[in-house]
């Protein structure tokens, strides 16, 4: 699938300068994005960021104010939703309550006047694909949430749509089922080789499922990148804050070396940060992931960014400890650690922590 991308063929889906204007205050876009064939792309962001609007423009339920949407190079924004052949899986499943599971899956095939024998075979295959071959005679109300969602997927997939669109499909399921469905969904998409656009506000979902993530806020794209890039190399403070836990520290650049940047935080610390393009005097935000801060044992040799801190609160979460601390003189810092040494800690204790220069990212404001 990545080969398609590298060959530079026409992207399966291309969004060019898409703008959707509701009122003067509420505008989505301009958004530009291209998705290669077979790629799984997530639109991730808080509610109201424009991710659902973008998806609904692709499906044809919203008309873009400006810009164009192309499927395999052909513009589709003038086509009515029923002519686009893009499969949409809804958050609330949207199964037809008056039809059996079989008839739900057969709905689109009947509209296309597919013959009886072929229809039966294709519906059967779709139900097998989602692992529910024996439920054809049931009504949606008799199924669990997870089963309903699988039927909704089967109903879309059976039509062999050009791309699959998902609108927060797992958010109505409980946590355990969500994790299981996440895996299934990914495997299914890989097996079918379908291009997928997936809308979610759940960063865990986006990280686990996607080839690429589009982080959005306030109707604009903040960053497009692989899950690794989004987490490890956030483009700005919004992305850093939205994805995963992070300590965001206001600071000023005081020295730029060949190998590192030295910054002074507003809380009075001096930190060595990873190299970047800032120059001396720039006001920046330094990001430190809580799990990248280490506890330093008493006798341990001097390291970079060695900090004295006082514990404010210790929260034990089973897998790891959440330590809330004041780095002296006064800088809030959250640390997540699995270090057994954290077990003996209590509020008021003095500790020494350290963070590698590579783990201190300098972001522009």
């Amino acid at each position, binding site marked *: 699938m990545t080969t398609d991308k590298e060959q530079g063929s026409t992207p399966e889906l291309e969004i060019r300068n898409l703008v959707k204007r509701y009122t003067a205050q509420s505008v989505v876009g301009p958004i530009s994005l291209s998705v290669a064939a077979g790629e799984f792309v997530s639109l991730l962001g808080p509610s109201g960021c424009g991710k659902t609007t973008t998806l609904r423009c692709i499906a044809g339920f919203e008309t873009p104010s400006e810009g164009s949407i192309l499927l395999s190079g052909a513009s589709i924004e003038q086509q009515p939703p029923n002519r686009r*052949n893009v499969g949409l899986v809804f958050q*609330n499943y949207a199964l*037809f309550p008056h039809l059996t599971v079989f008839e739900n899956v057969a*709905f689109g095939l009947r509209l296309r006047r597919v013959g009886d024998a072929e229809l039966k075979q294709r519906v059967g295959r779709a139900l097998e694909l989602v692992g529910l071959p024996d439920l054809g005679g049931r*009504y949606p109300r008799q199924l669990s949430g997870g089963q309903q969602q699988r039927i909704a997927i089967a109903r879309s997939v059976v039509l062999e749509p050009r791309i699959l669109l998902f609108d927060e499909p797992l958010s109505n399921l409980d946590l355990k089922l969500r994790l299981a469905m996440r895996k299934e969904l990914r495997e299914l998409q890989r097996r079918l080789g379908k291009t997928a656009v997936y809308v979610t506000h759940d960063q865990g979902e986006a990280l686990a499922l996607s080839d690429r993530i589009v982080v959005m806020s306030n109707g604009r794209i903040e960053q497009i990148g692989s899950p690794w890039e989004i987490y490890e190399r956030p483009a700005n403070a919004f992305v850093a804050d939205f994805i995963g836990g992070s300590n965001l520290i206001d600071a000023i650049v005081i020295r730029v070396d060949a190998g590192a940047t030295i910054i002074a935080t507003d809380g009075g610390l001096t930190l060595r940060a990873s190299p970047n393009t800032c120059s001396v005097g720039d006001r920046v935000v330094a990001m430190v992931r809580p799990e990248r801060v280490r506890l330093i044992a008493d006798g341990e040799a001097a390291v970079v960014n060695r900090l004295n801190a006082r514990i404010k609160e210790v929260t034990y979460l089973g897998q790891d400890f959440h330590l809330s601390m004041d780095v002296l003189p006064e800088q809030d810092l959250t640390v997540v650690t699995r270090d057994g040494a954290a077990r003996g800690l209590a509020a008021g204790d003095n500790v020494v922590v350290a963070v590698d220069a590579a783990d201190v990212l300098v972001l522009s404001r």
Partner: protein
Amino acid sequence: MTSSPWSQRPYWTALIAPLALYLVVFLVIPFINIIFLSFYTYSPTHIWTTELTIANYVDLLDASFMTVLLRTLRLGAVCTVICVLFGYPLAYFLARASRRIALIGLFFLVMPLMVSAVIRTFGWLVILGRNGLVNSAITALGLDRLPLLYNESAVVIGLANVFVPFMVLPLMASIERINPALEEAARNLGASWFQTFRRVILPLSRPGLISGCLLVYSAAISAFVVPMLMGGARVRVIGRQIYDQLLISYQWPNASAIATLLVIATTCFAFAVLALTRRSARQEQGT
């Protein structure tokens, strides 16, 4: 056995008792009386004698009564169809409109019901009469007057005007419960606007449609004021027939037989339709 059996009744007996009592005294007992009357013998001097007979029902097989009966049922059916045609789009619009628009729409919708039937019907006479608004406009254009009143069309217009709300309200309630995402799902799967309506909206709104038809049809075939004022002597319906038999001919046993027939017919119709609705509802729940 210390507590009385009344205190053990479920609370709902207390809730429905006042209305039930009222209905028994003022509806059930008089109606039983009418059923008895329909089997009594007509007497020119005493109006009726308690001698039992089925002659009043046999009389109904008469061709002139059959004409009245069939006309009434036909008017009811046409009126129901017209209410569906006008009411369905309106019900859909109101069900999908914002709260504010829906409230304003509902106000205008039920306004005809707040006006007395007689006054509303006279309004129609002013519009459709020989020298009414429509005919004045037509003659002003140099054309011949149209006979707009005292025919079946006039009765249908008058009835549909009153009964449209009875169609719209249950339909609207039904359509409101249909998740709009289902319409989008159908469109996404390739359904045109009309296919979405026929395969999703219509079957899912069937309970409301059936209740609406039931209400309109029952009300239309028992209507009296509108057919009398707008249909005149030519468009005789069952309601008018009962009225004439009762108050003009003093044929009380015969009038009672007609009334009993009408009530039985309406009840059978209602039960048949409700049984159908219940079956379709069960089907949807898949039990």
